[in-house]
C-alpha cells in the first residue's frame, strides 16, 4: 500500500507539472460560442464561406450543439449545397468535445494503471480489478474512436471566396480545371508554395490558392 501511495503522489505531481502550462495560456484562442457567433455574423453579412468555416470549427468544440448543426445546414442549403450527414458511429463517438474526451482518456489510463497495480499488490478480489481494467480501457477507447471519426474533418477545408478557380498545377498561371462555389467543403491533401491540393466530394482534384480555401483546423 505504501508503494501505491508513492505512485499516486508521483502521478499527481507529474500531472500538475504538465497540465500547468496547458492552462496557463495567456490569451484565449477559440470558444464554441465565440466561433458560433462569428459564423452568425458572417452569415448575416452574406459571407457563407466564412460562416460555414466557423460553424465547422464551432462544431469541433461543441459537437452536439443543435444550433450549430441547424445553422450550418441552413447556410449550406441557402447556397445550394447539400447538408452534412453524420454516420451513427460519428454521432456515437462525438458525445463530448475532444477536450473532454481527452481527459476522459487520461482518467481511463489512470484507472487501468491503478487496477493493474492493485491486482499485482493484492491477489484477493480479482474480479474487482478486472472490472476496473475493463472500465478504464473503455474510457481510454473513447478518445481513440473520437480521433478516428474526427480525422477526416481535420483534413478538410472550406472555400471562403466565390468562384474559386482550381488549377491543374500549383502555379499562378496554371490552367484552370474547374471552379468551386463558396462554402463548399473540400479535402486538403497537401500544401505547396501557397497552393493546396484539394479533392471535392465528387472526387475531382486540383490546386487552389491558399487564400481561397481555409482549413477547418488552422495550420501553423
Amino acid at each position, binding site marked *: 500500500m505504501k*508503494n501505491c501511495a508513492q505512485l499516486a503522489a*508521483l*502521478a499527481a505531481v*507529474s*500531472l500538475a507539472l*504538465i497540465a500547468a502550462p496547458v492552462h496557463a*495560456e495567456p490569451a*484565449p*484562442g*477559440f*470558444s*464554441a*460560442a*465565440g466561433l*458560433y*457567433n*462569428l459564423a*452568425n*455574423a*458572417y*452569415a*448575416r*453579412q452574406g459571407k457563407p464561406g466564412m*460562416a460555414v468555416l466557423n460553424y465547422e470549427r464551432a462544431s*469541433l*468544440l461543441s459537437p452536439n450543439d443543435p*444550433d450549430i448543426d*441547424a*445553422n450550418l445546414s*441552413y*447556410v449550406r442549403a*441557402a447556397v445550394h449545397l447539400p447538408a452534412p450527414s453524420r454516420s451513427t458511429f460519428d454521432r456515437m463517438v462525438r458525445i463530448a468535445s*475532444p*477536450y473532454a*474526451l*481527452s481527459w476522459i*482518456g*487520461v482518467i481511463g*489510463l489512470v484507472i*487501468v*494503471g*491503478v487496477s*493493474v*497495480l492493485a491486482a*499485482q499488490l493484492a*491477489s484477493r478480489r480479482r474480479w474487482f480489478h478486472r472490472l476496473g481494467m475493463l472500465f478504464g480501457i473503455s474510457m481510454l477507447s473513447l*478518445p481513440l474512436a*473520437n*480521433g478516428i471519426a*474526427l480525422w477526416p474533418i*481535420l483534413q478538410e477545408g472550406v472555400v471562403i*471566396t466565390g468562384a474559386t478557380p482550381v488549377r491543374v498545377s500549383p*502555379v*499562378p*498561371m496554371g*490552367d*484552370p480545371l474547374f471552379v468551386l462555389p463558396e462554402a463548399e467543403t473540400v479535402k486538403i491533401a497537401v500544401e505547396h508554395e*501557397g497552393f493546396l491540393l484539394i479533392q471535392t466530394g465528387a472526387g475531382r482534384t486540383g490546386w487552389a490558392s491558399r*487564400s481561397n480555401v481555409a482549413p477547418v483546423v*488552422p495550420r501553423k
Partner: protein
Amino acid sequence: MSKNRTQGGWLIALVGVLLVSAAPAIADDPLVYATIQPAQITLGESARFTITNLGDGAAPITMPVVSGLQFEIVAHTHQIELINGTTLPSSSIVVRVTPQMAGIFSIPGVTPKSPPLVLQVNAPPGSAGAPRPSKSPAPIPPPILAGGSIPKGVHLTEDGSAYVRLGVPKREVYVGEIVPVEIEVGMRSGFVTQFNGPPKLTGDDFTLNNSLLREPERSERVIDGQAFVLLTWHSAFSVVKPGSFPLSAEVPLRVKIRTQPRQESALDDKFGDPFWQNIFGPSVRKDINVESPSQELKVLELPAEGRPADFHGAIGTFAIESDVSPVKADAGDPLTLTMRVVGSGNFDRVDSTMLDHVEQWKTYPPKSTFKANDPMGHKGEKVFEQPLIASKPGAQTLPALSFSYFDPNTRRYQTAHTSPLSVTISPSLADSTLAAPQLAASAVSAAANKLADGLKPDHAAAESFVSSLTPPYLQSRFLAIPSLLALAFAGGWAGVRRRSHPAERVFARNRTASKMNQRLLAQMEAAARDGNPAVFFIAARAALQQSLAARWQLAPDEVTAAEVQARLSGDDDIQQVFALADESKYSGRDLNSTDFARWMRAVRQRLAAEQAR
C-alpha cells in the same frame, strides 16, 4: 481604221488574258466579297458599301458593326455575270455607310475569310473636330491608320505577308513572377487567309496563359506603303526555374502566295485593293509558321538576403492602404479592418495575416478578395478584410499594417506600411454577460441579407477558451501526460512485481498447481471410467510431477522416475505410478477396476500430503 482595229484586237486579247488568269483565282477565292466606294469621304457624305455574292449558294454574311459608322441597306440586286465564257449568277447588297465622326474606320470582312476595308472620313473644312451624337455615348475611337515601319529587329516573311513581334520586359525576370507579354501579328491585307492556331511561345520553359488569347486587339497600319492588319494579344507567362532561356513567339498562318514573279504583278498592285489583287493575281495557298526573332530571357532566383519574415512570394509593384469600419463601436461588437493592396504583379501570391495578436483585441483570420483591372489579373486590387473584436472599452489604436513584396524593377524586397488607426470602443450593455462577440449588430443590414433569416440566435459567450482547434489527444504537449502516466504505471508495476513477497509467490504457484491437479484428477477419473490405463497413469504422473516439482524447485519435466526413486525411496506406490505410466503407455497392459481405485487413492494421498507441506 486599220490602227483602230489593231488597238481593238489588243484590247480584246488583254481582256481575254485577264479573264483566263482570273479563272483559277475565282475558283479558289471565297464567293463573297465587299467593296466600298469611295474609300475617302468628308463628314456629312455617305459611302456605298457593296456586298457581292458570286454564286447561287447562300454564304453566311454578317453585317459589320463599327462604332461611329451607320449602316443602312438600300438595295438588293441580282444579275448574271459572264466570266471566262461561263455565266455566273450573282447578287449584291448595297449598303449606305454614313459616318458620325471624322476618322479612319476599319470595316471588318463580311465573311470570316474576307479582308477588312478601310474608310477614311475627313472633317469638313474649318471644323475643329468631329460632331458627336448628343444622346448616344461616346463611341470608341477607331484605330488610327498611320504611316510606319516594321518594328525594329522584326522581319517580314519572305513573301512579305506577315510578321510577328514579341514584347516582353527588357530586364531579368524572377522565378514566380508573372511576366506580361504582348504578341503582335502584322498581316498584309489580302495575303493572310486564316489562322491555323493561337499564338504560342516556343520552348518548354514557359507557360503561356492560353485562356487570354481569345480576344486580340485589332487595328490597321500602313507600313512601308502597304496596308497591314495588326492583331495584338496581351497575355502573361510565368517561369518556374532560374536560368537563361531563348524566347520567341510563333503563329501558324495560311497565306496566299503569288505564283508569278513580283514585277509581273505590278499591274495588280495598281488596283490598290487587296481583293482585286487576289482576283487578278494567280496564287496558291500555303501554311506557314511565322516566328518572332528570338530573345534571351534571364530568369533569376529571388535573393535570400534581406527577405522579410512576412514575405509570401508577391513579386511586383504594390502599395497598401488600410481603414477600419466602424471607427466607433461597443465592446464585443465586430469591426472590420480592411487592407487594400493595389498594383501589378502576381496577386495569387499576395497574402497577409494582417494582425495576428493585439493586446485587448480578439483577431480572426482575414478573408481576401481580388478585383482585376486587366484580363490577365496582373493589375488590380486585393482587399483583405479581418474581423476584430475589442474586449475592453476606451480609445484604442490598431497598429500599422505592413506588406512585403519583391520589386523586380529595383531588385530589392520592399515593405509597405500603413498608418495606425484609432477607434473608440464604448462599454457594451451586455458586458456583464457577454465575453464573446455579439456580432449581430454588424454594420451590414441584416434585413437585406436573406441568409440572416432563419438563423438560430447568437449564444451567450462562454468563458472556456482553448488555444487550438486540434484535439488535445493529437497535441504533443498533451500526449506527454498519458505517456508519463503510462511510464509511471509500468515502472510501478515492475517494481511491485520485483518486491512481491516470496510467500505470495509460493501461494500463487501452489494455487496454480492445485488447479492443474484438480484438472488432472478429473482426467484420471474419466480415464478410470473409460478403462483407459494409458491416459490414467499419464495423468497421474503429470499430477505428481506438478506437485513434486513445486516442492523440489524443479521443472515438472525434470521430475522423472529416477528422480522419484532417488528422493522418495520409501514410497513404493509413487515409484510404481511412474513405472506403470511408462509401461501402460508403451506395453498397453490391461488393469481392472480395482487397480484404478487403488492407484487413484494413492495419488490423492500423495497430492494431499504435498499440499499440506
